[in-house]
């Protein structure tokens, strides 16, 4: 983060440099971010290990419960997996298995944790991607509407409306939407990812999934819609005061051109950063929304893991989520560097 505002006079000419230079800059940025993520990931792993230790039973118990085995085999496994030693030895063994992408054995599913998690991941990514797209597009658009005339009636209306929306818990909004659109109007399906055994393929199947996702995406995304709206509006209020807006007016530019090309465009950049920062929160929110709508994703898996007291699975989900959050933030950083040539210039030259 600290490199973001750094950089000298050289940076101004950056956007005119050849493309290869910009690629190089992006690569350096990726390398730097990945190196920075390593200690963070290590702390997450140690924290996960502590939670695993605090829970009753260990990985061998989980294995034995799901696949069976006698006392002799259990003792042998414990020795082979390095679980009979000191806590430090156990931590080392845990790190070693993680390095081999072995997240342990799920008690509830009798399968390796990583397999179960990866199976559920695409559904969560689809839900989060759709919710992010909806909230970002609609939130920034409404934010522009509110921020284009600060203090007007529609600005006040949208501000109070977004504050009210910001106070609504997603799971309750989901239930209210179900009452309206499923119970009363019968427009949309109650739950699930798609109609089971419908035999649909291709476009028909995609449409079926889309119909199932309308309510979950709305329930998950509306909170962020309100957030982006408020950020956009606040950002525009700042930009309105800047000299280049006054200069634009003096040059006789039309109001809509000033609003869209000058004010909104500059206010949009902080929202891009927010996309990355909100990814962890949205993953957490998807736990409740997926449980509510019975969507077989990572979040519902977490709830199932809690229900089945399957701690290895729950910790596996936490680790995968942390990696996902780091990856999303990296993508957002790269996108930001592409959008704003000043970003990362200082780091790239270092």
């Amino acid at each position: 983060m600290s490199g973001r505002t750094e950089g000298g006079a050289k940076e101004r000419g950056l956007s005119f440099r050849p493309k290869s230079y910009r690629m190089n800059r992006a690569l350096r940025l990726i390398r730097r971010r990945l190196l920075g993520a390593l200690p963070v990931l290590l702390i997450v792993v140690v924290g996960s290990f502590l939670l695993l230790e605090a829970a009753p039973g260990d990985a061998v118990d989980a294995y034995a419960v799901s696949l069976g085995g006698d006392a002799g085999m259990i003792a042998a496994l414990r020795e082979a997996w390095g679980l009979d030693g000191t806590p430090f030895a156990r931590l080392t063994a845990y790190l070693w298995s993680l390095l081999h992408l072995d997240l342990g054995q799920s008690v509830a599913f009798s399968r390796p944790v990583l397999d179960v998690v990866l199976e559920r991941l695409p559904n969560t990514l689809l839900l989060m991607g759709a919710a992010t797209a909806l909230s970002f597009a609609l939130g920034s658009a409404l934010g522009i509407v509110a921020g284009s005339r600060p203090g007007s009636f529609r600005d006040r209306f949208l501000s109070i409306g977004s504050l009210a929306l910001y106070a609504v818990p997603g799971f309750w909004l989901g239930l209210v939407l179900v009452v309206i659109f499923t119970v009363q109007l019968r427009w949309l399906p109650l739950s699930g990812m798609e109609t089971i055994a419908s035999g649909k393929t291709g476009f028909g199947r995609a449409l079926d999934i889309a119909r199932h996702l309308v309510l979950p995406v709305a329930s998950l995304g509306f909170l962020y819609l309100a957030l982006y709206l408020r950020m956009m509006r606040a950002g525009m209020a700042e930009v309105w005061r800047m000299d280049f807006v006054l200069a634009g007016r003096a040059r006789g530019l039309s109001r809509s051109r000033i609003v869209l090309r000058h004010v909104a465009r500059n206010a949009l950049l902080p929202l891009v950063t927010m996309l990355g920062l909100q990814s962890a929160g949205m993953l957490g929110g998807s736990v409740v929304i997926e449980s509510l709508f019975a969507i077989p994703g990572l979040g519902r898996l977490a709830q199932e893991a809690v229900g089945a007291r399957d701690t290895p699975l729950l910790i596996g989900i936490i680790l995968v989520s942390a990696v996902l959050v780091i990856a999303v933030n990296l993508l957002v950083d790269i996108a930001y560097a592409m959008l704003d040539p000043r970003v990362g210039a200082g780091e790239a030259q270092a």
Partner: protein
Amino acid sequence: MSRLFLRSPEAVAGTIILALLVAMALAAPWLFPRDPLAIAGPAMLPPFQDWTIPLGTDRLGRDVLSGLFHGARTSLAVGLAAAATSIVVGVLVGTIAGFAGGWVDEVLMRVTDAFQTVPGFLLALAFVSVAGPSLGVVVVAIALGAWTQPARITRAEVLSIRERDYVAGARVIGMHPAEIAFREVLPNALPPVLALSSVIVAAAVLTEAALSFLGLGDPNRVTWGGMIAEGRAVLRSAPFLSIVPGIALVLTVLGVYLVGEGAVEASAVKRGNA
């Protein structure tokens, strides 16, 4: 300050909502001395039928109005306790990191990064699942995911304050660094964190509701999230049972936001005038 605060209609609305909620929470054991989890009448009694149970009963014959009042207690208590815990921990960590600098700062900030990388709700879920659901555990579980923001803000503030002249003065007169950090720097670093406290309280109330909606709240307490989950089973015949506690929840969070915004605006106006 209070006159400025009451000038904005939003702040007044927020204050009225919160005052009503606090009154509900305080009056719950007087107005509804019976256990809100006990059977009060026939199951699924619709509202406005029996005036001893004005809002009717749920699937198990429990008094809905009594649940709302007692739920206000849990919601406010957990929300405030979790927010207070996260602010205290965050301010301490931020002050130590910012004031000590060097490797202490580096380690503390990487730990903060790690806590921000893991989704707070998943962390809360895992903690409650390992430690078992009780009121105290839920408070700690919520605070686990919420202390990072106050920590970052405090650290940023401390970094700028520690270079000021009065801090240098305190060093010169030989004050102990810990005393400087906690008696000179920390109090001056608080305002931006306190400005954020309404958001933290609101988030804590919402997290508590979501946890108890998933059945991870204290099983011996009525919670609005638990009531919403309970009503889900009869959503088609009595949507009312899920919708009403949700409205209470929305009003609570909205009240907290409105009061917070009003306070921030009032202090901004005050600073502007000074």
